[in-house]
């Protein structure tokens, strides 16, 4: 298993809780902030596997960042533009910016998260 960031749309569970779609492609996750609007996107830190990342790659509602040096997608730029996201940024750079606003973006491990 590996811990990766995914940009994901969300759905509403039967109990009303907003859940990232990408949870179908992993088991333990952290979503620092939910999307402000229905159909919006959010970054999710998730415990996943290569097969699951492969499957997620075929889901249009999920974008997988396999590396912190991956250039952020346009959807990511749009989602976090207000927090400082700009086209061409690496994921790591974006997380650095976001963690300055929201501490959970600075999370480096899910293994002690319960």
């Amino acid at each position, binding site marked *: 298993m590996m811990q990766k960031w995914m940009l994901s749309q969300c759905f509403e569970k039967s109990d009303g809780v907003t859940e990232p779609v990408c949870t179908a492609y992993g088991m333990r996750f952290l979503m620092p902030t939910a999307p402000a609007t229905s159909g919006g996107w*959010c970054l999710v830190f998730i415990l996943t596997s290569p097969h699951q990342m492969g499957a997620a790659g075929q889901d249009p509602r999920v974008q997988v960042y396999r590396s912190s040096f991956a250039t952020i997608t346009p959807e990511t730029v749009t989602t976090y533009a207000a927090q400082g996201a700009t086209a061409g940024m690496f994921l790591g750079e974006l997380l650095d910016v976001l963690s300055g606003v929201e*501490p959970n973006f600075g999370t480096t491990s899910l293994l002690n998260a*319960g």
Partner: protein
Amino acid sequence: MTQQLDRDDVLWRMQTQADLLRLRNLQIPKNPVVTFTATPLPNSFGATIEFTLGPDLKGCSQINVMRNRINDLSSAVLLNTYPLTAENANGDFQFIDSDQALLADQFYWLQTIPLPERAGLAQTEAVSGTPIVSGPVTLSALNANLLPPDAIADWSVSLGAGSNGIQLLCVNFAVPSDPNFGSCQIQATGYLGDTNPQIVGQGLSSPFSFTMVQTGETVTLQAFAVSKNGINATSGPTHTVTLNGTETVPAKLENVTVTVITTGVQVDFDAGLEADITSYKVYRGPHGSGFGSATLKTTITSTGSRHYTYLDTTGISDAAAGAYFDYFVTAVNHVGESSASAAVSAIPPLQNMDQIGQGATYLKVPQFTGREIVVSNANFEASASILPPPGWINPSSLNLSYETVSPDSGNRSLKITTCPQNSAVLSESKWPCSPGDNFFVQAAMKGDGTSDVVTALVFLDKTGASVGSVAADGGAPTSASWNIYENQGVAPANTVSCQVALKQTAVTSSTCWFDDIHVIRQTNMDNELLDGSTFRRLKYVNSSNTISVSSALNPQGSIIPGQALTVSISFTDTTITITWSGQSLLRADGSILSLVASGGSPITYTGLSASTTYYIYLRLNVIAGVITAVNSSPPPTSPNATNAAQTALDGFAAIPAVKVTTQAAPGPPGGGSGGGGDTCPEYSELVTVRDKGQIKAGEVVAGDMIQGYSFKTQSNVFRRVLFTSGTEISAWRIVNGHKVSPAEPVWDGNKWTPAYRIPGSTFDGSIGTRINITVESDDFDESNFWLTSGTPLLIHNTFILPC
């Protein structure tokens, strides 16, 4: 005539004579016997042979006691030998010749055997001298065993119908236990006009018969025991009969015996001699209640056999606690039924020394089946007269008696009068045991109120020394009523055996009573040892008669490790909410723990600080199946060891601490999860479960046996489900009509492939519940299972590819 000897002849003869004198060393034996008598034993068979020896045993080797019925030593029987060593000089010797009925004259001899001598010039030849004989002492039969035997205690007689002026009389009698008994003699008074008693019949054994003339007289018959030497007992019971040709009921049966065997109570009796007996009836009743309280158990048709046996298979099991039955037998002819035989009690025998008591029990200690009854209700019912009681020893010569007034059970208890401190009556048996053996001891005890009365199981080491004990300590009971005391204990190190001791512990001697002693050894845990239906925890009775449970096995220990509970977390800048779905976990005993979904009762913290990390400590109640937090509200902001420890207290399974950092500012809540599975089928997919058939995956619970396939054995198998949980997701793959998580390992007929790579599989973005099913992998590390609707699909072999 003068014999002329040459010089050589003279020298040779002188040499030989000298040698012989030297060899004999002048030890020419003399008869050492000074006195020699033979005296009949007064109350039994045989005689006492007594003799004394003088001071000079020189040249004597041994003395033999010989006996013969004729005056012939050469054919006499050697009875005993005594060595004639120097220390036996002037000694008195006595030999009991108990193996002789002395019905005829006997001759006794003492035969003194000389030491062997060496003969010949080379002293190589051993020569035994001629024995020296004392006797014979003749013991006349008329002088032997002149004492009368014990009287016959009970007998019965019946009359047959007169025929040709003659009546047959049949006699049954109780054979006395006196070994001097020889026969039963019937004397009649008033018979044939004679007012003096006259012998009319005699038999060596019961029953026997004889005839009398049908005179019409009413005569008195008296039964006398006669010794083997013809001596009559001085008295005997009588019966009066009228010799008028009228047939009577059969004589009362005597010598009925009962034997307690593993299958019940066996009743044995000899047939009566009456030819017209048609049947026998066996009755059973409470002990001591008499024939009037007995009920008929069976009727045995007379077959002409001389002996009958009946097995009462419920003769022990039907008896009330601590009680037993008396048996009676009657004989029936066309006239009627004989009087009942004397009561014979079916007391369970001392089958071995592990059962020094008899009867049922009201044992209070745990009735677990995994036990060995070491002492089963020792209530001193084996004998009313033998002391110490059978199975017990009295090494301190304590003053023992049976107390028959108000025993705790049965007919008597054991009383120790003026018992010194710690002087004990001990069980004769020492039962082997080992360190760590768990024993329960219980006894009913009374005392005089001045001392502790104790029934102790004493543990002994290999030298027989005490290394500890388990004592049912009665405190200082009074004699007013019985007190039941019990205790439990474990054999200490070096224990090799144990023994029961009955005693009192006060310095001042006191009197104490004991009854109903039980000792049980626990042999294994079983259902009767549980403190509930789920967890295996040992129960025992402590000294205060309280049932306790061991804390050695905590409930959470029964939760199979590695089962990942899934909790969901959502948080804002001021709140944290923890929820969970319904899940099931397998306990080690095979039972299921169902975790109830949080539903509308999640764990919620409000009023929290933004951008702050909180540590939340959750635990699962393994009885109620509820998740709770042990931390305060708000949760601690740094790791808390106390809270961490509290998650693992008895009755709870700890959940790893949840670390949550609140958001920095108000806004859409964040979320997360802990634990959980990653791949599995959708809730409605069908699987096959043993004993349940085809059910939805969402209905599978821990403990179910779900059908899978063994590539190793090329056959379907059932695998134990260890854990189930459900998680809502919104991404699926449809493979051959089955809805599974996107990366679910699927067997494509050749290899394991993630579902999304299966050719023809399609994406499904609907919201549904993924059922995480964790199964126990088999010996070949396979853990797959079938989705069995439509075209079956084999999934879930996550890691191991088949050979």
